[in-house]
């Protein structure tokens, strides 16, 4: 079975029309016609992750995020970059091949990144969620207790929270990765991966700081991009096993990058 054949099976099973114009969901490096010995699913093709996948005998990497440190995996500015050469050579030397599934994963039902994020956050009932689960009502708690639960449950070391830890919260909006949802009057807490802090499409941080100043119960919990979408790649691997039986499939987590 070749990597290209694996991708064809995924396209057939993902249940949505394939968008060939996606700059994200393409082969990134390696030979698509290489024979697949094993598949590693991961949130991000970090160099560390590639080494672990190779050591486990998995030569096809299916990644949710980029390989070359920019969203489009545009390598024009990187051809003379030593780290680019090192990482690329590692993949080629070990007959590995990297393919990304991002846009189509988010368009799929369920969106496994959000399924995994809700599980990581310890919020029940997200097994069949789409990318936008809508407002979820959880038993009333404080922002501080919810943040502590999310930290324990997800293991996120570099979790960042904004808002009054004593604020009473129950209406939660969750989004994966950089798609941290915007907060507003109907929502108490948003949970996401990361977000531009200010001067963006909507600046949650300033809004929550102002809400706190007005005594309104609002909060943000940011897990980090990797942690927010990590668990879903294990679910994605489980899903692959329902139609790929010839090669081993293993979830190989990307490392949380922060100290």
């Amino acid at each position: 079975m070749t990597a290209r054949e694996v991708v064809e099976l995924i396209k057939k099973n993902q249940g949505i029309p394939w968008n060939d114009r996606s700059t994200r969901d393409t082969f990134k490096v390696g030979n698509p016609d290489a024979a697949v010995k094993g598949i590693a699913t991961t949130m991000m093709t970090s160099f560390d992750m590639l080494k672990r996948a190779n050591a486990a005998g998995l030569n096809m990497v299916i990644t949710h995020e980029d390989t070359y440190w920019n969203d489009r995996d545009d390598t024009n500015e990187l051809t003379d970059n030593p780290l680019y050469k090192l990482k690329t050579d590692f993949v080629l030397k070990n007959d590995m091949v990297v393919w990304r599934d991002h846009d189509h994963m988010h368009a799929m039902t369920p969106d496994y990144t959000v399924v995994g994020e809700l599980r990581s956050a310890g919020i029940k009932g997200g097994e069949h969620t789409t990318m936008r689960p809508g407002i979820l009502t959880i038993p009333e708690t404080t922002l501080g207790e919810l943040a502590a639960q999310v930290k324990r449950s997800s293991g996120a070391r570099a979790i960042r929270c904004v808002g009054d830890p004593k604020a009473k919260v129950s209406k939660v909006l969750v989004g994966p990765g950089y798609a941290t949802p915007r907060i507003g009057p109907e929502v108490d807490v948003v949970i996401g991966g990361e977000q531009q802090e200010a001067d963006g499409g909507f600046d949650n941080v300033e809004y929550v700081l102002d809400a706190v100043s007005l005594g309104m119960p609002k909060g943000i919990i940011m897990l980090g991009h990797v942690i927010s979408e990590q668990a879903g790649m294990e679910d994605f691997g489980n899903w692959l096993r329902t139609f790929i039986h010839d090669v081993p499939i293993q979830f190989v987590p990307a490392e949380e990058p922060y100290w």
Partner: protein
Amino acid sequence: MKRTHISRRDFVVLTGTAVAVAPGLAGAETLTAEAVLRRIRTELGSEWPSTGPDGLKAGDPSTVVKGIATTAMATLDVLKQAVRENTNLVLTYEPTFYSRADGRAPAAPAPGRGPAGLSTDDPVAKAKRDYIEKNRLVIFRLRDHWQSRKENDMVTGLAAALGWSAHRVKSTDTVYELPKATAEATVALIRSKLNLRAGLRAVGDRKATIRRVLLFPGSMTPTIMWQRYTEVDMIVAGEVREWENTHYAADMFAAGEKRALVTTGRVASEEPGMRLCAEWLKSVVKEVPAKWIGVGDPYWRPTA
């Protein structure tokens, strides 16, 4: 003294043209926000296009200025402090109304990021507008033009806050050569000098010996990261995207490179530069006091 009311639209047109007013022309009693802003514009000297984020965000430009507050971000707490400090013209580096559009009609929503724009009856925005109106504050965003000064105050301010001013290698660049210390010790110093909590995050080799540091307040793109990371032992930036620059620093670490990337938080990295702005204003607008008001690190981390 009674003044003709200048509408917001007229004001924009006025400041969009090359009208120069000599500093000190207006007396203290009649020093309006409009006059102060025109003087700032003349002093900064750069082109003042009508596009871009800078400009009046709230308040009446004919308001007589009692004092000027500068800040990295005009949060409601900052505005309350500005009122307590008896200042009524607020110069902010970041938006006031929760987006680059700053309360104007939003652009089309980006996919996956939820609905865009701010509803006119949003209770938080409404309360902020009411507070501004009640206290007769004038809010002006001063970002691109403050940044255009050749002195590069956002960098020199951050360096001064870190105690590194004397260590700058070249005035045309933002690399600092420090006495040797481990990455961990350097991070501890940054945390303590900038009074940071969970907003500070570090990636890379914590045992690396740090001597050369590149300072980059605000938001750093991948291209700059790729070009400059191996020139130095550490980059200190405001914010980066995790799946781009952070991922690059993590891969460098996996490749055995003894370097580190530190992000302080975007606003935290911009606070010292706006503190310098207040100092600069003291030499440009002598009639009224100018004060810097800090935002503080907005982030915390649960201990459990």
